[in-house]
């Protein structure tokens, strides 16, 4: 498969990455190389092979349900661009 320029622009939009038309063309080439690699892998017969969701064959470690974190709001908010009344302020977003 080969990506169109529109598809590249759309992926960039979804990832909130700004790319110029020139960069889009270069990115398209790079992404297409990746897809070629994937195509090569997809050619392998994987019938009967269980899909892998993680590179390590281990089970998820679980922790006991206990509140162990202290309130460190002051430290976190000291590095935030803007805060008020304990809230992080961001450019207005309304759906």
């Amino acid at each position, binding site marked *: 498969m080969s990506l169109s320029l529109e598809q590249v622009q*759309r992926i960039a939009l979804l990832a909130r990455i700004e790319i110029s038309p020139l960069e889009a063309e270069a990115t398209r080439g790079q992404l297409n190389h990746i897809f070629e690699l994937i195509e090569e892998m997809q050619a392998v017969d994987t019938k009967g092979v269980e899909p892998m969701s993680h590179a390590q064959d281990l089970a998820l470690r679980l922790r006991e*349900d206990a509140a162990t*974190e202290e309130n460190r709001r002051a430290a*976190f908010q000291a590095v935030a661009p803007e805060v*008020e009344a304990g809230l992080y*302020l961001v450019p207005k977003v309304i759906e």
Partner: protein
Amino acid sequence: MQWEVVIGLETHAQLNTVSKIFSGAATAFGAEPNVQACAVDIALPGVLPVMNKGAVARAIRFGLAVGATVAPRSVFARKNYFYPDLPKGYQISQFELPVVVGGSVTIQVGQGEAAYEKTVNLTRAHLEEDAGKSLHEDFHGKSGIDLNRAGTPLLEIVTEPEMRSAAEAVAYAKALHSLVRWIDICDGNMQEGSFRCDANVSVRPKGQAEFGTRAEIKNLNSFRFLEEAINYEVRRQIELIEDGGKVVQETRLYDPDRKETRSMRSKEDAHDYRYFPDPDLLPLVISADWIEAVKGDMPELPQAMRSRFQEEYALSAYDASTLTSSLEMARYFEAAAAAAGKANAKLCANWIMGDLSARLNRDGKDIAESPVGAAQLAGLVARIGDSTISNAIGKKVFEALWNGEGQSADAVIEAQGLKQITDTGAIEKIIDEVLCANQKSVEEFRSGKEKAFNSLVGQCMKATKGKANPQQVNDLLRKKLAG
């Protein structure tokens, strides 16, 4: 044209763990903004999620309660979208391999003659994290973000599109709400957002096999809004199609003030979530032993308890269903019935569903915090059962117990002299006095007016302050008037 409504529900039940799903921050409701948002919740670079065992245990409980398959192996995935109350830029959820697969919830729809039972099949239930909250007002043109809720564990419970009316959807939501509280995995507080529904609604001509295009109504946090929103949406879609229009697949919000659903102006790629397995989390493995251990710890489920109540206490389906609407009420009933004796079980049921529920309602109290305990109510019911007091006097005793004017029904009856008069001689004496003072009624009765009889009974009861046995008064009075 005859239309058929098709509804599927997605419910987010907030799991009542003390800490978050992937961090050790507290989950208590109502804290000051951002004091319960740790480095993991606000997504500082380099942090890693660590799964909360309590959240998994609750998912297993749910799976067992609905007769589903608890997956021996399930996988967490990233659901990617950008919004300021989701600081990672993705929500950790489950996609291809959820923790709970299948299962069903049985619902009772309607009342009386038209009532029917229906089984709603579940597609799946999966674990995920909640997002934070955005506050849009009053920050000089900016939005304020509170991340206390970010990372709170949710179980998203998804049904098959099997409901055919708003009434069925509400019955399902209520049954599910009762169930998650029953098995103690969610506090069910809808005002605080602990239990919220999204409704997928579509319509199709009756008899058509394919589904129509659906609209998803988001974040319905009351049963009334759920019902109103679905009914509005159904009308809107039918009118739209009948006017030659087409339903667009979209997300809508319900406005309870204007009683209508409105399209959320979202971009078309808002739903391109690009799920992929989260490399930070290994597969969740649940052993058969763990499932067995959780099974051993499960309370008797409402369905089973309903049948048992009908059999063991000879209650009607309606009574059994009302008494098992919450585990607290069911336990209260069983404690009362055990203390008052099985012969008084129906009387206990009547008192719990009648006077007690009404009084609790009036004071906005839960049955678990009732001032009249199960043992006290049983004592009262036992005295009505053995005719020490009448039902009417029972109400007086109940009120006294409610107000703490006595430790037991017996103590109140004794202190206030409420014991029923059953001595025939004493009652006859009172009747004689009443007959003497009410000659007019006596004549009216003798001339055939049955109403006059009731008035005389009333006078006798009044003269004994309600303490005479009404049946006895009836019998003796009739005898006297005949003689």
